[in-house]
């Protein structure tokens, strides 16, 4: 984890590696953005918590949630967080083949998660439990959909990382970008812990 470190800032006395300066400042700035993203998710959680009993006579949580699928989604995301960490280690060690492999696995697991989520959403909409059915379902689709949208952005980001790696190769710029990406991906996993606990597991208690 990078920190705001006075000795690394441009105006500090000892001349430092400029690339490391930029990683420190960018890393901290991105970390603050992620914290603000966590607040965005917290407000969606608050909306869901307020609305989760407002089913308007429609389907309730235990009726629409299928926990085995959620467990599979969780496993995909957890292992992808692990391989994302390994990709960053490979990037810092300058091992291009390992980096490409781990990034590809991260992408595949993220895509598998997204596929499972999309199939869950289409099943629910086909069952008449779409976002227009009740306030509970509106809150559910907004919260879980916002997380899925973040995952989609993360997948696009991996593709861009591949493009940058192919075009520019390794360098301080690439280290900075993959560091920010891994922060983003790990935070999405933390948000998912809250979703599977509060929305799915507690939501499917009778």
């Amino acid at each position: 984890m990078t920190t705001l470190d006075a000795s690394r800032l441009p105006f500090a006395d000892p001349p430092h590696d400029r690339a490391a300066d930029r990683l420190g400042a960018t890393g901290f700035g991105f970390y603050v953005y992620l914290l603000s993203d966590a607040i965005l998710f917290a407000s969606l959680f608050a909306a869901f918590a307020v609305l989760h009993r407002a089913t308007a006579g429609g389907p309730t949580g235990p009726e629409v949630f299928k926990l085995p699928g959620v467990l599979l989604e969780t496993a995909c995301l957890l292992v992808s967080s692990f391989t994302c960490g390994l990709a960053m280690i490979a990037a810092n060690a300058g091992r291009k083949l390992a980096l490409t492999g781990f990034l590809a696995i991260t992408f595949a697991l993220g895509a598998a998660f997204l596929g499972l989520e999309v199939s869950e959403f289409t099943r629910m909409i086909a069952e008449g439990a779409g976002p227009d059915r009740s306030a509970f379902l509106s809150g559910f689709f907004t919260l879980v959909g916002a997380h899925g949208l973040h995952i989609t952005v993360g997948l696009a980001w991996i593709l861009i990382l591949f493009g940058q790696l192919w075009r520019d190769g390794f360098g301080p710029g690439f280290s900075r970008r993959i560091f920010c990406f891994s922060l983003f991906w790990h935070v999405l996993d933390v948000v998912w812990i809250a979703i599977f606990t509060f929305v799915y597991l507690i939501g499917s208690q009778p």
Partner: protein
Amino acid sequence: MSDYQDSRAAAPRTPGEDARGGVGHWKTYAVGLGLALLLTGAAFAMAGTTLMTPASIVAGLIVLAIAQMIVHLIFFLHITTAPAHKTNILALLLTFVIILLVVIGSLVIMGQSNGLMMPMDQLMSRQR
């Protein structure tokens, strides 16, 4: 800012934390993954059990979620209580405070308003 310098001089960086700011070692990630899988498994097992009362299941799930979030913060995001991480920790704590205010505040205010609402059948009869 001077206490940063002092603490950094006194305590050299841990191995695996390089000058680029702590990327971690693969073993750290492996331990984190193991713990996270264990806690996830426990949470899903607890949600399906009939051995506990509903209220204790909910309490247990919340405890497991908090534990797993801490595991992720430590092993994947490498947030520690080291003095060099002071700024990060302060920003994280401020975020927690805001999140608690937003979530608990919304629940309390909406719960109160809900209690003040006219019962639905009365509301309907007045609108006629």
